[in-house]
């Protein structure tokens, strides 16, 4: 496999911690509860990043460490666990770590075990911002679920799709597999705790999300299953490779070239717009590699693809397809701004923290964060995927250029009341 050259910087970029993945996981696993052992900071983070302000009865909460709790190295959370069971009746409780108890050296495995029962297991999920970024803790949640996937006998040769996708996407993948004659054992995670798929030596694990390498590796090591190594199923190119490689695992040679061509044809208006456009990835979701690969296939010029981490084995096929693209791990934000000023990209995919300010500097930028929960997988997701990139470009092109005059930014921000520009 080709070894793409990557640059590694100091990691001084804007992002969130692993707790944020609770936002989609608690909705995916409908009978779950997510309990964070943390501080006021964790609660304020969840409140402000999860759009919480609109949920009246969330199935996540913080077991709040206050000053008096700091002296005890093993806090007692049994009262909160009982409160959760009483109020929410979950089938499973995930106990997430955070920075403060990590610094306090709380022994989480033991803490979870002390409140876990066979009826309502309490599972430890490492998610602290000291070690995990944004989407990575989904990997931790899925690892915690592995012991609850029943073992499958070696002759059970079926696929398990790996990664949380909504029910509509899951249906798409089940139907597509049936159409190709690929037997499906299920999804990890499933929508309910007791619906986890059986996994054994005959299982082919097909990752749908690019941030799940720990779970994939553990399944390979513990259950002896095969992990599909292919492109991730985003865009006509990725989807075709994904299904062809998956079918090959079941001894079938499938040619989806017509299907791919038809999919490209359907989005021609959009790829025409993207062709030759300079795109800069400054986001932090770990979805950057497959997204950049798709844009490259659309004919765009990816001037930089920054991403928190690259796993050479798990991302091997994507890295090969990204040959020639400047790849940066653990980017430095100040350096990115200088590169953006030099290369003048047409579109920047960034964290929600930096998107509005980047637009304020006169470039077109869009949220990268939403790729974690946009339905962009498989054939059905192609249109949502491509329009996610062209929508901002087309909308900005439609707006009256008069509004781009920096005068309209004057006084919008007390710390920057005057006119500003990227070069200043």
């Amino acid at each position: 496999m080709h070894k793409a050259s990557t640059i590694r910087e100091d990691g001084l970029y804007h992002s969130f911690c692993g707790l944020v993945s609770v936002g989609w996981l608690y909705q995916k696993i409908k009978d779950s509860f997510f309990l964070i052992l943390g501080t006021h900071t964790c609660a304020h983070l969840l409140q402000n990043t999860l759009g919480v302000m609109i949920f009246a009865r969330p199935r996540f909460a913080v077991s709040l460490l206050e000053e008096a709790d700091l002296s005890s190295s093993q806090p007692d959370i049994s009262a909160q666990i009982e409160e959760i069971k009483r109020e929410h009746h979950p089938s499973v409780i995930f106990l997430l770590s955070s920075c403060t108890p990590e610094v306090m050296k709380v022994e989480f495995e033991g803490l979870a075990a002390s409140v876990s029962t066979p009826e309502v297991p309490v599972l430890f999920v490492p998610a602290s911002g000291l070690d995990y970024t944004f989407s990575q803790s989904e990997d931790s949640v899925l690892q915690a679920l592995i012991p609850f996937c029943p073992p499958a006998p070696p002759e059970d040769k079926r696929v398990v799709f790996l990664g949380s996708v909504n029910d509509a996407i899951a249906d798409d993948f089940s139907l597509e597999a049936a159409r190709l004659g690929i037997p499906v054992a299920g999804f990890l995670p499933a929508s309910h705790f007791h619906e986890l798929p059986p996994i054994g030596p005959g299982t082919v694990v097909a990752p749908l999300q690019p941030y799940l390498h720990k779970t994939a590796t553990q399944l390979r090591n513990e259950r002896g299953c095969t992990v599909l190594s292919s492109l991730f199923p985003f865009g006509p190119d990725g989807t075709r490779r994904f299904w062809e490689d998956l079918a090959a695992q079941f001894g079938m040679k499938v040619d989806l070239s017509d299907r791919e061509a038809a999919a490209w044809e359907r989005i021609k208006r959009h790829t025409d717009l993207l062709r030759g456009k300079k795109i800069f990835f400054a986001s932090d979701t770990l979805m950057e590699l497959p997204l950049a690969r798709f844009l490259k296939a659309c004919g765009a010029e990816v001037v930089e693809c920054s991403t928190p981490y690259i796993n050479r084995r798990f991302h091997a096929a994507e890295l090969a397809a990204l040959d020639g693209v400047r790849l940066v791990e653990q980017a430095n934000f100040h350096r990115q701004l200088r590169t953006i000023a030099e290369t003048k990209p047409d579109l920047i995919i960034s964290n929600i923290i930096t998107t509005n300010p980047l637009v304020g500097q006169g470039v077109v930028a869009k949220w990268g964060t939403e790729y974690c929960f946009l339905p962009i997988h498989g054939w059905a997701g192609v249109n949502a995927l491509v329009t996610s990139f062209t929508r901002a470009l087309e909308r900005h092109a439609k707006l009256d250029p008069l509004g781009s005059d920096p005068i309209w930014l004057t006084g919008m921000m007390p710390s920057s009341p005057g006119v500003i520009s990227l070069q200043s």
Partner: protein
Amino acid sequence: MRLAYWMYEGTAHHGVGRIANSMRNVHAVFHAPQGDDYVNAIFAMLDRTPNFPAMTTSVVSGTDLARGTIRLPETLKQVEERVHPDLIVVVASCSTILLQENLEIAAQHAGLQCEVMVYDANPYRMQEIVAAESLFTDLVKRFAKPQPRTERPTVNILGPASLGFHARHDLISLRRMLKTLGIEVNVVAPWGATIADLRRLPAAWLTIAPYRELGLRAATYLEEQFGVPALLDAPIGVQPTLRWIERLRELLAQAGANIPMPPLTAFSLDGMSAPSAVPWMARTADMDSFSGKPAFVFGDATHVVGITRFLRDELGMPIAGAGTYVKHQANWVREQLAGYVDDLLVTDEFQTVAARIAELRPELVCGTQMERHTSRRYDLNCMVISPPTHIENHLLAYRPFLGFDGADVIADEVYTTCTLGMEKHLIDLFGDAGLDLPEKVKAPSTPEPAPAAIAIESPKPADEPVVAVAATPAAPAPVAPPAASPAPATPVDPVWAADAEAMLKKVPFFVRGRVRGNVEKYARQRGHAVITAQVLLAAKEELGA
């Protein structure tokens, strides 16, 4: 330890960020794990900042801890190189403060040209409000210098800050009134102020600090240290605004400036009308029904006091109760609301406030974003009068809470939030007033929002987006999921007999939830386990509805 869902106040480092992002050429650096950077998103999203918020996280990772490395000096150098600040405020986070590192020494290692201040904000002892107020006071103490007064009478305005509740609008309202009085502004801080502006604070003749949460201590310091008198009242409502102007003129007169009072019409937007329509509106027959609409008010100290008094004194509404989450201002609030509220609720636990609202079932709830949740759950009218806010509270149009203009804004909000008088008579007389719709089918159990991925693309209005990104005007204002049943305020919940249920169905749908709640409350009080038609009739008679 306790189970926490929502927090009223942000963290200490958020308070520090609010001061840094209010001032020009001041930058906050958080010595913190990556996740603590989320506070940046609040500014970029809610304030829609066209520049990067003035704060940077100097990332602390697990690897750094294992190796004993500290990246703070390098981060400080990078920040100085990019934004050239006059001052950098360094603050630890809830996790890094436990490491007991010497950040002073680490900061000195950076060898910066600009001033660096390591601010000791213990996140276990202070939250957003105290952290912001203490930092701002420290900055004023550090930079304000003795100097002669300005030649003409001028005033400072202290308190408006980034992410402050309607702060920009309040500032416009204050400036408009000062302009009408012919008084110039010396310095506004922290909003838009530089360090040099802080130095000039003692040159003013008077300091205006309307908020109990921010600016109060700095104003008091300027009075004690430099003899600049302080006007600490909040002009919320018409009468308080008149008294505020009077007090302003008195204090300036004592300082030797005679400020003539212009005709009141000079304060209006067109310069020739009454400056507020509230006194007349409150006297119209339309408003008589408001004497039967009890209100519950909860929020920060400034707004709870101002709004409670406004509702009773200027609109003639009864006060069902009030409370605040700003515990260190509770005594002041209690004192200010003596005669208005008997048992002030002081708590920062949203479940406690929700329980009080469920018990009172007021006609109007004035609260924060959390009370909006609670009100949706119990089908009550709610308006937001205090932070924490949602992006829906960050509107573009001029909507001050202070001054004459503010009185009109608040009165409009009260009027449009409540169920109206004539409408209510028609409902009472004809049942549905021709407005009824088939009863909505309620979900059998606690409804959960659809998976996020669906929520984004689906046109269904009940789907709720997951991440804050989605809570922007791009997404339609989400409809709260209908609560399956209100959480019981007491252990026993009465059940509805079929005959009573049938009668309830004849109540118009948009007040049905409230009637249901009121009757259940009545039944609980009377110890009825079953609500029969007889109980319902008795309740109607008792409650007059």
